[in-house]
């Protein structure tokens, strides 16, 4: 695994999990180290999101252990969280609610400034556009200075311009020292931005490594094509 000389933030050993009685994955071993930009890829239904949530200790796996570095601060952008209009709350109030109770800094104002949330900070969260909501979720995830930022299909539903801006933000955060773990079915993104790609297929990690390494190595390429058959077949037509 990459970054062997960096501290391990999350260590998962022998993870096995089922969904509705069907085995989702078996004996998965995975580390997430400090400084990493890791993308988890795979076809729909391969359990990428479930694996991410297991890694974050949001779901307890049926077998195996997930260990976090002591005091690890995680920022999380969940998949498809559509804000519920039943609960009235503004974008700014959501940030304030997410700030640790003991934190008396002006972090909320800073985030609004840095992430350009001014235009909609006073708006109700359920009235935001897809791009505004995603930007708010990212700012929210960063509010307690996370060491690891976990993103689950963060650009789903965004137009190309917003996607590009989003990835630029993530790259910038990575350069500033935040570790990134992302679930994506966007092969182009995984190859262009991340340092390390892990591909899930048929309940196991079918291949992993640096994007360049995956692309150049015929054996890896073959396995990678297996994991992303529809995309790659289309690509080769």
């Amino acid at each position, binding site marked *: 695994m990459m970054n062997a000389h960096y501290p391990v933030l999350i260590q998962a050993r022998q993870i096995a999990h089922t969904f*509705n*009685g069907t085995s989702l994955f078996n004996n998965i071993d995975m580390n997430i180290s400090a400084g990493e930009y890791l993308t988890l890829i795979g076809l729909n239904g391969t359990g990428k999101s479930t694996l991410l*949530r297991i890694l*974050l200790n*949001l779901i307890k796996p049926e077998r195996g252990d997930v260990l976090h570095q002591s005091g690890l601060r*995680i920022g*999380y952008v*969940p998949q498809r*969280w559509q*804000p*519920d209009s*039943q*609960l*009235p*709350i*503004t974008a700014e*109030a*959501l940030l304030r*609610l*997410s700030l*640790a*109770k003991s934190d008396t800094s002006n972090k909320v104002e800073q985030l609004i400034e840095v992430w350009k949330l001014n235009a909609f900070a006073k708006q*109700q969260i359920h009235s935001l556009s897809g791009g505004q909501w995603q930007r708010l979720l990212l700012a929210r995830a960063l509010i*307690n200075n996370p060491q690891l930022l976990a993103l689950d299909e963060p650009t789903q539903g965004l137009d190309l311009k917003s996607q590009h801006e989003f990835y630029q933000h993530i790259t910038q955060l990575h350069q500033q020292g935040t570790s990134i773990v992302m679930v994506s079915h966007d092969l182009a993104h995984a190859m262009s931005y991340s340092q390390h790609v892990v591909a899930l297929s048929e309940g196991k990690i079918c291949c992993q490594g640096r994007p360049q390494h995956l692309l150049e190595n015929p054996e890896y390429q073959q396995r990678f094509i297996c994991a992303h058959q529809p995309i790659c077949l289309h690509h080769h037509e």
Partner: protein
Amino acid sequence: MPDFMTLALVGGLLITLISAPVGTFMLWRRMAYFGDALAHTTLLGLGIGIWLQLPIQLSLLVVTLIVAISITRIKLGNTLGTDTFIAIAAHSSLALGMLAIALLPAGRIDLMGYLFGDLLSLTETDLLLLSAAAAIGITTLVYHWRGLVMNSLNPELAQLAGYHNAKLNLILAILIAVVVAISTKLVGALLMTALLITPAAIARRWSTTPQGMIIGAVIIGWIAIAAGLALSWHYDLPVSPAIVSILFAGFIISRLIGKRH
């Protein structure tokens, strides 16, 4: 104003002080059915209380707490949904309660009073009980405010922020059980959910903050209680249905003229 009307008014205002905030959380978390189910189980509490000669408020509280905690904690696996379990628990309790009451000598219980409540039968002891419940309930909500709101918005984000979701869910379930148990005598099992949910649903129309919605729900509940009592006094109508009808009218008006936030 006669003493019993004063007691009814103060009691109604005290109930609303805790039922409206709890009802607002129920609305945010789509738990209306949970409240309704607990209201059904109070009939079993009534039956058990009469058979064992326990104070009725105590037996209602014990039964609603047992059912609320069981529903919240039970893990049914993949084959049965929680709503199925809630429905079975609610209606089985109702059936068992009906059997217990049917076996009593005739005239031992005022079933209509139980189903529709009787705010006018409030005693000073009831007021003390309501004051204690309201004080404890509000303190609990204020103390766990951030966790409960975050958990209502997104349980996973609440968990990552260090809140204990199972504990928060249990606290809310216990508060709902307490509100249902102490209010059954006053507003009745059948109308309980309306008193919990409708003020919050009306307040939603004008609210821009979670705190504002709760305060709005309390004020709307207070208006409905006062207006319902006045209506009942002047036109000799049953109190609880008058209150719930006023809330319903308020809900319709809020849908027609309210500003949507």
